[in-house]
């Protein structure tokens, strides 16, 4: 945030002012009623709208973790080999045999390093209700998106959420960009 938060006395003055105006101005009170306290849990962060769009703060993802996961998927499940290979000339049976290597190995790598959990445990296709104040990152509404929450709809995909990440510790100076070393048999 670029602005500093108001001081205690500024906040006190603000609170008293709005206390008085909420009591005396019905229109303002109606506007405040929209704001459900549950939507503002303690510690929530608020963006300040100053009337003009501000540049969003974008974060560069840290490549190290991504490289580590790729290396694990290659090491256990040969994922990079599989994706880099031209599938053109192969029969489905050959591809199937290789897919087993990839599936079994990558699955093991995932299981060991990420704890995965569906966002919604319900069966896909079942009707679910999306309450007001839902987490729009975890739930994507599609189709006839109109009206007010709670929304009712059919669960098309359960979603995935990582609840725990345990990545290997890496020695200082270890080059993570080498996903798999070249092997030279002597």
């Amino acid at each position: 945030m670029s602005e500093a938060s108001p001081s205690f006395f500024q906040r006190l003055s603000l609170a008293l002012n709005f206390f008085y105006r909420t009591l005396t101005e019905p229109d303002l009170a109606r506007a405040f009623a929209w704001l459900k306290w549950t939507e503002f849990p303690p510690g929530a962060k608020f963006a300040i709208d100053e009337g003009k769009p501000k540049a969003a703060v974008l974060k560069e993802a840290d490549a190290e973790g991504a490289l580590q996961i790729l290396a694990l998927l290659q090491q256990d499940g040969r994922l990079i080999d599989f994706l880099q290979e031209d599938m053109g000339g192969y029969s489905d049976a050959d591809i199937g045999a290789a897919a087993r290597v990839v599936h079994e190995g990558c699955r093991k790598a995932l299981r060991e390093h990420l704890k995965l959990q569906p966002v919604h445990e319900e069966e896909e296709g079942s009707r679910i209700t999306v309450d007001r104040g839902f987490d729009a990152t975890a739930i994507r509404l599609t189709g006839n998106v109109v009206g007010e929450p709670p929304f009712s709809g059919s669960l098309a995909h359960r979603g995935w959420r990582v609840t725990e990440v345990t990545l290997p510790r890496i020695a200082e100076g270890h080059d993570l960009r080498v996903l798999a070393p070249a092997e030279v048999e002597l």
Partner: protein
Amino acid sequence: MSDPRYAVGIDLGTTHSVLSYVDLETSEGDEVVQQVLPVPQLTSAGTIEDRPVLPSFLYLPHPDELTPADLALPWAETIPYAAGELARNLGARTPIRLVSSAKSWLCHPGVDRREGLLPGDAPEEIERISPLTASVRYLEHLRDAWNYQFPDHPLHRQALTLTVPASFDPAARELTAEAAEQAGLDNLVLLEEPQAALYSWVQSTDGQWREQVQVGDLILVVDVGGGTTDLSLIAVTERDGALELNRIAVGEHILLGGDNMDLALAHVVRAKLAADGKKLEPWQLQALTHGCRSAKETLLADPDSGPVPVVVPSRGSKLVGGTLRTELTFEEVSRTLVEGFFPVVAADARPATRSRGALTRLGLPYAQDAAVTRHLAAFLGRQVGAAEDLEGFQREGEFLRPTRILLNGGVFKAGILSERMLGVVNGWLETENAPAARLLEGANLDLAVARGAAYYGHARRGRGVRIRGGTARSFYVGIESAMPAVPGMEPPVQALCLAPFGMEEGTEAELPPQEFGLVVGEPVRFRFFGSSVRREDHVGSLLEDWDDEELEELPEIEATLPAEGKTPGEVVPVQLRAGVTEVGTLRLEAVPRTGEQPWKVEFNVREEND
């Protein structure tokens, strides 16, 4: 020294090692707070992950093979070798630098176990290490992992229990204790692995074990580890109104374990591939063994799941073209594992025996007969009289009849194998019209030994039941009898009993009346024997002749009378005295008649060069 905070159990296994611990401060009686230590280890170069087990492998890399950072551990910046998962992975492609099965070498009577032997196929430029040193390295790794997690409670200050196969000979036990000492852990006691498995079962019942066994029960423990099969019998008796557990017999050392089973399956699949004209290279066998293991688990869990595909990925980056695919069927698994390793045999079946000549320096003396059931039949037959001296037991029939069976080891996760094992024993019991034995359930098959060892550390402090037993063998020294030599005939040997059966830890046997004349400064060797069946012999008993079944010859022992203060060449009369240390190792001493200090008789002596 302050009281230990934790009781720590280490299962130093042939193929993997596990450390478990009980918090003594928060545990009371049957309420035990127990964990398995996550062991940080290299899983690939420069990459460290926590694993519940440390694969018992060491890799001795070429100086240019890896960067120093590739081998760094949280507690050691530079270390010239890798232990654990990385070692196993690197070794699959470069076996000449891989140390494996050190534990089997540690009890190999035909070699000098302090000599650099491993890796067996190493070329000259690789400095080989001894089976003892390999064991030290694994213990050091576990010690450092522990100290890293518990800097305020260093491992050498905890109550440490290290497990050994019940069938380990005195030299192998002593070497295990010595390995611990070299790793700075001299605070240990040894515990037999089948006993550890039983302790783990006792603990898993939350105090209910007293309802599951009763006086007169005979518990058979079958512990099939990665590399060895270990058998023990434990009798349930009563003392002062409380149930007591007595380990009354242990089996021979059988180098046959779960890894043999996975390898056997891999060979079946390899033969199938070969029939299709596809040849496997040696490195592919490991991938195949791995594939077979998971296919086996699928099939044994659900026999109706149909053929399970097994694939061996290509070595190069072309995955699709080079991957071999075949299938494993339930019928093949059943034929190879169930019929190959657990065949239905009669109670009087005996394993194909190995001649003594097979104990070569070249390789490990693997069991020649893969049938666990035949080894078990031989064990129960040999021990038919093991319980007859206990109150509430009598000798009946042709073999000792167990009433409860505890199975331990990952292979028994497959229901079909544990059912077969139980079925075979119950078949034997049925032919003698004896009641069927029941399976004791609830133990964790993979981690039970380490967990049981940690629990033992807790129970030893008077907080739980203890298995009594003492040494599971009596020990003898060979005396060449004074008879005129007959050409072409070995001079007859008598066996003098030094240590009776069932000696408890921290006790000493009395002195036998027989004396030996030792020459000052000259090493003297004695033949050495052990018996797992002669329970009546006492110190000084002199055996004129015996069956091969009764007495097993162990590696020779050696006494060297130090030359200080004596004339070289002088002959000093001594007596040989046996004791069992607090650690649980056998100790032999030469006691001079002149009243001087006794000195140690060595078990593990260098083989004479022939």
